[in-house]
């Protein structure tokens, strides 16, 4: 009779699964298998068997485990795949080196890598896997506990049919009986196997613990060749409880080995043997607590089950963990850290033990994390490095990680301190990063300028020129374009920054088509860039692109671009950008006249943007929301949103429409026209056209004249706006109708409707009632799409002589239910004047009282809100 030990419990009941995985590997259509199941069900064991099978078919294999502690330093979980000498500062070269190594190893067959608990894998490791999978040189067998999240690279492969998902349930009763018979080496009494089945419910880990427990405490014995129970099984403790009880019963030397493994696994057999007698290891192996994985030339010892690691880590006092880790660090350094991935493991252990490690290594690890857009980890590692003293690169990494997480004030603190630190290789980049954070993050362009002056030594550097131009362009696009020049720099990252600045300034200056080209080019180049210091994320280029497309009237493209940008920003967790794209989508919806949709997008944007700092995106988000509400007539005079910043030009639009919403239409027009004039003076022609056109829509008499003078803004939308102004000046109904058609073709429905209403009015006045009716009808159809918009331009006077602007204001307020007294107060006129206006309005509209007037006014504006009708 074979002695009953727990060594190498036989593999029962899962051969079908091994076959499926092997088929997947052979078939070549799949490149990953995910084994999903609850803890203790046998996922790791299955992965091991699959690896053995693959190895027997000539594949090279390796088995790694992601653990919560190994995730402290990126890539340390994949240490067995990494070159011994590696350059962490150049992730791309590193990835490439791993790829080449795998190719050499694999000799034509895919390398098979098993990854336990893949959900715990750090982002950089995931990025490396993705890289290798895309290359076709790797086949991954991943295990995943039920209810954890699969990394996107595997999830998307599974969705697209390139990965197989195998769900592991607990073993069936027959399999448990067979397993017991094999493992114990003899028949098991019906009562004993029933009790073990009942308790374990087919969870293999639990079954093993129960059997081991029973053997040790003498409840499970072999008499006359048959295994029986002498009493009830150990009371119904859960598996975790059983495990920790068992670990408790070990002698100190055994326990020390297990604890070390729990912190640092896998460890090489030779390392362990240096300080542990072989019989201790043999005993632990015999008890099924540790196992040796043969991985090519390397022999690694691991704990048999992750649950053991968890229980051990949990029970370990902090100080004990610290001293074990440090002792291990000392040993590995003692023999020169020669194995693959050793430097990373050292950093990881040090960090776990002391909260810090070799600063050079930490900075490199932080760069790696930044490369994979793992911002929280970048932050942690860079912070740890800075605890050793000032380090320009570490500050840069930390500052940028904070900036991209939209923590602008914290970023400023870090960057300000570091830029004060004087010269150094990073000094220049720190200055750039800080200026950009001040400008984009804190909305403080003046401080950004002052900061940039600190880098006057690098005056000719394209990156500096780019930032300088960006700041200059806020008040003078002409000067900014002059700074930039037309010659694209030849090298990155200066070029990428230059392209972004240029696109931004061009877009502001009205050269929208040129801006779109520059932004597209910038995006393409930016995407190829591995080095993302200072230049941030490629999606920043898409913000500008969206803007340039929208202002040209290319609305569908603008939407598509904004969605793409949003997707990228969310995928990489770039919070500084996440809010910018909903705001852009809101602006497109506004341009279309979809006021409800716009409101939703702006609210979403604000939810993302509110936080530290006051980035320009926040101002434009608030502005957009105010405009959307004003157009729907849903803005109350005391709305807290109306605390819009005073000085800023982009907020002028919000201020103007807010005035209009409270009945001060004339002032609104003046405000918008004045802001438009200011924008012209600064060369911000795109904004100027938009503002002047808004003023025109509010009936401001001078706006049309100013608007036709602003030529040079590229794109169909600006052309239509100018044509509209021209038609108003000439009082030409046909020209108005034509302009309306252009707006409609662009999808700018609300403005098209307003222009049609004006055309109808003119037709009626010039005695062409039939055309008037046609235009009015068309307008009504378009308004249907505008989700309840009720702008002044939509108000149709029913009488023959059109209402004056003032009369329209009064009429609208009456329709809102305002008393004459309140209207008088709103408009700063006397009650008597209000009543005079009212009489005139009644006559012109052919109504007798307020409620009839409200009904008449309501027909134009009160359209039910409809679902977003994107085209």
């Amino acid at each position, binding site marked *: 009779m*074979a002695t009953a030990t727990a060594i190498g419990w036989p593999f029962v009941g899962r051969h079908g699964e091994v076959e499926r995985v092997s088929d997947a590997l052979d078939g070549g259509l799949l490149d990953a298998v995910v084994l999903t199941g609850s803890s203790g069900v046998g996922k790791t064991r299955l992965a091991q068997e699959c690896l053995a099978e693959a190895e027997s078919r000539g594949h090279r294999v390796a088995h790694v485990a992601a653990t919560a502690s190994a995730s402290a330093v990126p890539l340390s979980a994949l240490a067995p795949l990494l070159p011994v000498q590696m350059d962490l500062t150049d992730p791309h070269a590193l990835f490439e080196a791993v790829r080449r190594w795998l190719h050499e190893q694999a000799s034509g067959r895919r390398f098979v890598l098993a990854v336990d608990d893949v959900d715990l894998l750090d982002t950089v490791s995931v990025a490396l896997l993705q890289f290798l999978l895309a290359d076709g040189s790797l086949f991954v067998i991943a295990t995943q506990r039920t209810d954890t999240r699969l990394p996107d690279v595997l999830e998307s492969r599974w969705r697209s049919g390139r990965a197989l998902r195998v769900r592991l349930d607990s073993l069936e009763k027959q399999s448990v009986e067979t397993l017991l018979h*094999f493992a114990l080496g003899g028949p098991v009494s019906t009562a004993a196997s029933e009790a073990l089945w009942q308790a374990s419910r087919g969870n293999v880990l639990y079954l093993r613990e129960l059997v081991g427990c029973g053997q040790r405490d003498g409840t499970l014995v072999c008499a006359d*060749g048959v295994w029986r129970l002498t009493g009830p099984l150990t009371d119904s403790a859960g598996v975790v409880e059983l495990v920790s009880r068992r670990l408790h019963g070990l002698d100190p030397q055994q326990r020390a080995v297990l604890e070390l493994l729990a912190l640092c696994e896998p460890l090489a057999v030779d390392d362990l043997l240096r300080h542990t007698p072989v019989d201790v290891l043999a005993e632990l192996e015999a008890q099924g607590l540790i196992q040796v994985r043969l991985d090519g030339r390397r022999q690694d010892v691991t704990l048999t089950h992750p649950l053991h690691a968890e229980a051990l880590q949990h029970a370990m006092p902090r100080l004990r963990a610290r001293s074990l880790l440090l002792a291990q660090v000392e040993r590995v350094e003692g023999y020169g850290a020669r194995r693959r991935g050793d430097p990373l493991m050292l950093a990881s252990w040090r960090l776990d033990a002391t909260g810090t490690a070799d600063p050079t290594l930490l900075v490199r690890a932080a760069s790696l994390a930044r490369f994979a857009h793992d911002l929280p980890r970048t932050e942690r590692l860079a912070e740890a490095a800075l605890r050793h003293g000032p380090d320009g690169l570490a500050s840069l990494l930390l500052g940028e990680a904070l900036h991209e997480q939209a923590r602008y004030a914290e970023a400023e603190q870090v960057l300000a301190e570091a830029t004060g630190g004087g010269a150094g290789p990073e000094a220049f980049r720190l200055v750039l990063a800080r200026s950009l954070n001040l400008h984009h993050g804190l909305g403080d362009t003046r401080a950004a300028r002052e900061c940039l002056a600190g880098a006057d030594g690098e005056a000719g550097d394209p990156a500096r020129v780019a930032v300088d131009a960006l700041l200059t362009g806020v008040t003078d696009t002409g000067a900014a374009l002059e700074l930039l020049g037309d010659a694209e720099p030849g090298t990155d990252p200066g070029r990428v920054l230059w392209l972004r600045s240029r696109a931004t300034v061009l877009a502001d200056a009205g050269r929208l088509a040129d801006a779109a080209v520059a932004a597209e080019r910038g995006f393409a180049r930016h995407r190829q860039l591995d080095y993302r210091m200072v230049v941030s994320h490629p999606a920043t280029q898409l913000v500008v692109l969206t803007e340039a497309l929208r202002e040209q009237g290319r609305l569908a493209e603008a939407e598509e671009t904004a969605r793409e940008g949003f997707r990228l920003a969310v995928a990489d967790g770039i919070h500084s950008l996440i809010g910018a794209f909903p705001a852009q989508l809101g602006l497109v919806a506004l341009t279309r006249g979809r006021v409800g949709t716009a409101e939703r997008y702006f609210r979403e944007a604000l939810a993302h943007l509110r936080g530290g700092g006051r980035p320009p995106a926040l101002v434009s988000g608030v502005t957009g929301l105010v405009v959307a509400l004003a157009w729907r007539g849903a803005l109350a005079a005391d709305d807290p949103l109306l605390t819009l910043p005073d000085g800023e030009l982009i907020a002028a639009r919000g201020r103007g429409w807010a005035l209009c919403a409270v009945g001060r239409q004339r002032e609104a027009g003046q405000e918008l026209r004045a802001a438009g004039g200011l924008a012209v003076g600064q060369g911000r022609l795109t904004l100027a056209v938009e503002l002047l056109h808004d003023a025109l829509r509010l009936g401001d008499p001078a706006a049309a004249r100013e608007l036709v003078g602003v030529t040079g803004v590229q794109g169909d939308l600006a052309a239509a706006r100018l044509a509209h102004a021209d038609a108003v000046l000439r009082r030409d109904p046909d020209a108005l109708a034509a302009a309306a058609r252009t707006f409609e073709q662009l999808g700018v429905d609300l403005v098209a409707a307003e222009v049609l209403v004006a055309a109808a009015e003119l037709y009626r006045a010039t005695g062409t009632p039939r055309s008037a009716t046609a235009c009015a009808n068309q307008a009504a159809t378009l308004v249907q799409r505008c989700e309840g918009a009720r702008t002044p331009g939509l108000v149709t006077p029913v009488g023959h002589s059109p209402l004056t602007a003032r009369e329209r204001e009064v009429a609208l307020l009456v329709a809102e239910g305002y008393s004459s007294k309140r209207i008088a107060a709103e408009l700063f006129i006397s009650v008597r004047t209000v009543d005079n206006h009212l009489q005139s309005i009644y006559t012109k509209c052919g109504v007798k009282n307020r409620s009839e007037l409200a009904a008449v006014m309501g027909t134009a504006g009160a359209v039910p809100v409809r679902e977003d009708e994107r085209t």
Partner: protein
Amino acid sequence: MSPEQVALVRDSVRAMGPRMDAVADEFYRRVFARDPSLRAMFAGDLVTQRRKFADELQAIVTAIPDIGAFLDRARLLGARHSGYGVRTGHYRQFRDLLLETFAAELGDAWTEELAVAWHRAYDMVAEAMMMGVPRSTGASFFTR
């Protein structure tokens, strides 16, 4: 398996004795009737094959009480079978048909307990066969 089941199977093998050949004949008839495509896998002489199968089945279930010998034998046989291209699904097919054949041949003697016992015995054989030959020579790394 429980000791009772081991005994039941052993006794039934003994009782069947020479009738085992007929069982094997009937079993293979059913196998090929159910899945004619399997015929192609058996290149050698079928009469001999049926005899070998019957002998082996008898020998191997009788070996169950000596678990070491049983495992060695079954795993070797299984390793050869993986060479024949036998897959896990085939083992299931064989089990169902073998139990059906026994039921038909034994009539009233095929009790519920006997059926369960044979089911377990077949599982023992099949699982051991699917394990194949051990990949490493010893189960322990450190005591080798």
